[in-house]
C-alpha cells in the first residue's frame, strides 16, 4: 500500500491515522503521529541517504533488502549523477517517482522529517555532517571510519550522546558469526590471559602519480565535495581515489581500522578505552599526489599490559584479520568466514551462561532498524567506533611525527607533545566549522 501512496494521499491518510485508524505500513516519521519517539514494529522507518556513491548505494541496497523495514523518501549527494541513480533505485523499488533529491545536506536536514539517515561520505565530511544529523535528532547509520581526526570524533560522540539518538557504525563484521564467536572466545579467556593482538589491514596500492588538472565533471559540485578541506584543483579523485590523500583519509589504515581493530577491541575488552603508548613506522609514496602510508607497522601498548600490533597484511604471519594471543594460544578471524585457533578444540568451547555474552546481531542493517524501533543500543555504537578509529589515527600521528606518542585514553589527550597534539585535528577551511554541541 505504502509503496503506492502519493504525497496527496499521504496527507489524507495521515489525518486518518491521527483519528485512530490503522493504515499499514507507514512511511512517515513517528513524530508525525505524535506517538512519541519510537516507532511501532509494524511501521516502516522513514529514511534518507546522504552520500550515494558506491558505499552509500551498497548500504541502500542492504536496507531495501530488509522486508518492509524502511522507506527511503529522500537522497542527497553533491554529484547529480549519483543523485539521479539513487533516486532511480529508490523509485524503482517502490514503483513511484516520490524520492526527493538534494544537493546540499543542510537543505536536506532542514526540510526532511525522517526517522533515520544512512550516511556514506568521504571521511573529511564526517565530523560536520554526522554531528549535524545528530543535532537534528535523526538516528544515524554512519560509515566507518567515523572520523578523520580525533577532534572530529569527539564532537560526533558528544553529539550522538547529547541528542540520545540511535547510532549504528557501518562496522558490519560485528554482525557475522565468525567475528562474534572469535571475540567471545577471546574475551572469555579461551586462549588464557590476552597479552598480544595482531591486526592485519590491507597493503597499499599503486598510486596514479599526479593526474592533470581537468574540468570538473558536469553534475559534480566540487566546491561542496571539498567542503572543509583545503581547496585544490580537480584532478579526478572525487569518487574513489580520495582514499589515498591525507586531506580526506588516512588510506587503507584508517579505512580498515573500523573493521579489524574494532573486532580486536571487542574481543579484548578494549572497546571503551585506548592505548597509552603508540610507536611505529610508515612507508610513504615518494612521487605523486597520493600521500597516505602504503605500508604501516605500529605497536600500541595498553594500561593493562596488552600490546596490539597493527600492520599492513604482508608484515604479519597470518596476514589480514585479527589475532588474539593469550598465554594458552591464539584465535584468528578474518573475512571469508575465517575462524581458526592454535588448537582447534578451542573453537568447540561452550560459553557458559555466567560468562560474557557478546551482543548478537545477524544482520547489521536489520539491527539498526530494530534498535530505532526499540530504542536499544545498536551493535556498533558511536563511542566504540571512535575507540577503534582512534587507534588508527594515533598510529598515523606516531608515523607522521616519527615519535613515540603517549596517550591518555580517559582524557583523550596526547601527553607532553605539542607537535603531535596539533595533529589531533585538521583546521577547517572557512566558512566551515564543526557544529557546537
Amino acid at each position: 500500500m505504502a509503496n503506492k501512496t502519493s504525497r496527496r494521499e499521504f496527507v489524507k491518510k495521515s489525518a486518518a491515522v491521527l483519528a485512530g485508524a490503522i493504515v499499514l505500513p507507514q512511511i512517515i516519521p513517528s513524530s508525525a503521529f505524535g506517538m512519541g519517539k519510537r516507532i511501532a514494529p509494524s511501521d516502516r522507518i522513514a529514511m534518507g541517504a546522504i552520500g550515494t556513491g558506491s558505499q552509500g548505494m551498497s548500504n541502500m541496497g542492504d536496507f531495501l533488502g530488509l522486508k518492509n523495514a524502511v522507506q527511503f523518501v529522500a537522497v542527497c549527494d553533491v554529484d547529480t549523477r549519483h543523485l539521479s541513480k539513487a533516486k532511480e533505485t529508490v523509485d524503482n523499488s517502490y514503483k513511484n517517482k516520490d524520492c526527493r533529491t538534494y544537493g546540499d545536506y543542510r537543505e536536506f536536514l532542514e526540510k526532511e522529517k525522517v526517522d533515520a539517515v544512512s550516511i556514506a561520505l568521504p571521511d573529511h565530511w564526517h565530523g560536520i555532517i554526522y554531528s549535524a544529523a545528530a543535532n537534528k535528532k535523526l538516528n544515524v547509520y554512519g560509515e566507518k571510519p567515523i572520523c578523520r581526526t580525533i577532534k572530529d570524533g569527539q564532537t560526533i560522540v558528544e553529539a550522538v550522546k547529547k541528542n540520545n539518538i540511535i547510532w549504528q557504525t557501518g562496522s558490519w563484521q560485528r554482525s557475522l558469526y565468525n567475528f562474534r564467536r572469535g571475540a567471545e572466545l577471546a574475551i572469555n579467556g579461551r586462549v588464557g590471559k590476552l597479552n598480544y593482538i595482531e591486526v592485519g589491514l590491507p597493503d597499499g596500492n599503486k598510486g596514479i602519480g599526479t593526474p592533470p588538472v581537468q574540468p570538473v565533471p558536469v553534475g559534480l559540485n566540487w566546491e561542496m565535495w571539498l567542503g572543509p578541506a583545503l581547496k585544490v584543483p580537480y584532478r579526478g579523485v572525487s569518487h574513489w581515489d580520495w582514499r589515498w590523500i591525507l586531506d580526506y583519509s588516512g588510506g587503507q589504515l584508517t579505512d580498515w581500522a573500523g573493521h579489524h581493530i574494532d573486532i580486536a577491541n571487542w574481543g579484548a575488552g578494549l572497546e571503551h578505552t585506548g592505548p597509552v603508548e603508540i610507536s611505529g613506522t610508515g612507508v610513504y609514496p615518494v612521487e605523486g599526489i597520493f600521500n597516505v602510508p602504503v605500508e604501516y607497522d605500529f605497536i600500541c601498548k595498553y594500561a593493562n599490559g596488552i600490546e596490539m600490533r597493527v600492520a599492513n597484511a604482508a608484515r604479519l604471519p597470518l596476514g589480514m584479520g585479527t589475532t588474539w594471543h593469550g598465554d594458552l594460544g591464539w584465535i584468528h578471524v578474518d573475512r571469508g568466514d575465517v575462524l581458526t585457533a592454535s588448537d582447534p578444540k578451542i573453537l568447540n568451547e561452550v560459553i557458559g551462561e555466567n560468562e560474557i555474552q557478546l551482543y548478537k546481531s545477524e544482520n547489521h542493517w536489520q539491527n539498526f532498524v530494530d534498535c530505532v524501533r526499540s530504542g536499544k543500543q545498536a551493535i556498533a555504537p558511536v563511542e566504540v567506533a571512535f575507540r577503534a578509529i582512534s587507534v588508527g589515527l594515533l598510529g598515523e600521528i606516531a608515523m607522521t611525527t616519527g615519535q613515540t606518542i603517549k596517550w591518555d585514553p580517559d582524557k583523550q589527550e596526547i601527553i607532553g607533545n605539542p607537535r603531535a597534539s596539533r595533529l589531533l585535528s585538521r583546521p577547517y577551511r572557512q566558512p566551515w566549522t564543526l557544529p557546537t554541541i
Partner: protein
Amino acid sequence: MKKQFIFLLFTAIWLSLFTACKNESGFKTLIITGQNNHNWKASSPVLKQILDETGLFKAEIMITPDKGGDMNTFNPDFSKYKLVVLDYNGDSWSPKTNAAFVQYVSDGGGVVIYHAADNSFPEWKEYNEIIGLGGWGNRSEKDGPYVYYKNNTLVIDTTAGIGGSHGRRREFVVTNRITDHPITKGLPVYWFHATDELYSQLRGPAKNIQILATAFADSAAGGGTMRSEPMLMTITYGKGRIFHTAMGHADEGGGPAMQCAGFITTLQRGAEWAVTGNVTQPVPSDFPSAAGVVLRPDFKEITLEEALAKVGNYNIPKSTKYISCIQSHIRKLSGDEAGLLNLEKELNKILKSADASVESKKLLLRELSWMGTDYSVSEIKELTLNAELKDEAEFALSRLK
C-alpha cells in the same frame, strides 16, 4: 706499565690507520666486465658510481680480453679486494683464474652477481654454486631445480625444462620475502622496480641460498611463468658471502632499471653485507613503495640541502620527491629540537622567497602547521594577506596557536 702503554699506543695507531684506510679509500672493490650480451660499457661505470657513492667502497673496473681473446692474460689478484662485482657474461676464464676466484670466495671474499652475470659459465660447477641460480647457456634440469615462490610458499621444483627466460621489459613489483635480513630490514615489503627484464625460470644448485625478494612474472606481459621469481638472493660459499641481484638491465647511461632507487639501494646494501655480513647504511628517503617507481637519474639520493634548494620549483605535475624528502627528514629529526628549528628556518626562507612557487609554499605551510614553532607565526600571518595562500596560511596558524 710502560709496555702496556706502548701496546695501547700501537693499538690506537693501528686502529686509526685501519679506520682512515676504510674511510678514505673504502673497501677495495673489483668490478669485472668486458664481455657480456648486455651493454657492459654502460653498466660497469654505473655500478662503480653506485658503490663509490656510499663512501664504503673504492671500486675499480677491470676489463677482460675481448671475446676469443687470450684469457691467460686475465689474472686478477683477488686477494687485494674485499669485494668482487661480476658484470661479466662471456668466455671461460683460465683454469688458474677460476681457481683463484673460488679460493677468494672460499676464504671469505665478498661477491656481487649482477644481472646477466648469472648467465655466465654454465659449465663451471663452483661458479654455479656461488651464484646459486642461473639462466640460459643450455641450463636445464641437469643444473639443478627451479626455485620460486608460488602462493606465498617457497618451491624447489626439479621439473625438466629450460633455465632462464624473461618477458617484455616492464615495471614490476618486487616483494621482499625475508624482511629481517640486514639487506632488507627496514625496507617496504612491496616496491616498484623500474622498467627491466624480469628474469624467470632460473635454476641451479641453489645450495646455501636465501631468496630475499621475488617478483611475480605475470602472463599478461608475455613470457610469464605465473610464479614469483627470485630477484634478490644471498648465497654463502665457504666463508664467502654472495649477493645476487637479477635486476638492472642496462641501457645507454644506465637506463631506468639501473636508475631505480630500489635497485641502487639494494645493490649498495647487498654489497656491504657481502663484505661485512652487516648493513650500516640507513634506508634512503626515496626508496620506492607499492605506490610507484622512483628514479634517480644521477644515481644519487636527494640530500636535504638539494631538496630545500629545489622544492621551491615545485609545481604540479613536477616531481613531489623533494617535499617527500623534507617530510622524511622531519620524521628523522624527531626529538632533535635544534635540528627541527634549523629546518623550520630553512622552510621559512622558502616561504619568503619570491622565486618559490605558490604550490611549494602551500605544501610547506601544511608541514609547518604541525612541526613549526612561534618562529614561523609572524611570517605565516603575513601570508594570510596573500589571496593565493590565505587558506593554507590560516590552516597553519590555526594549528600553531
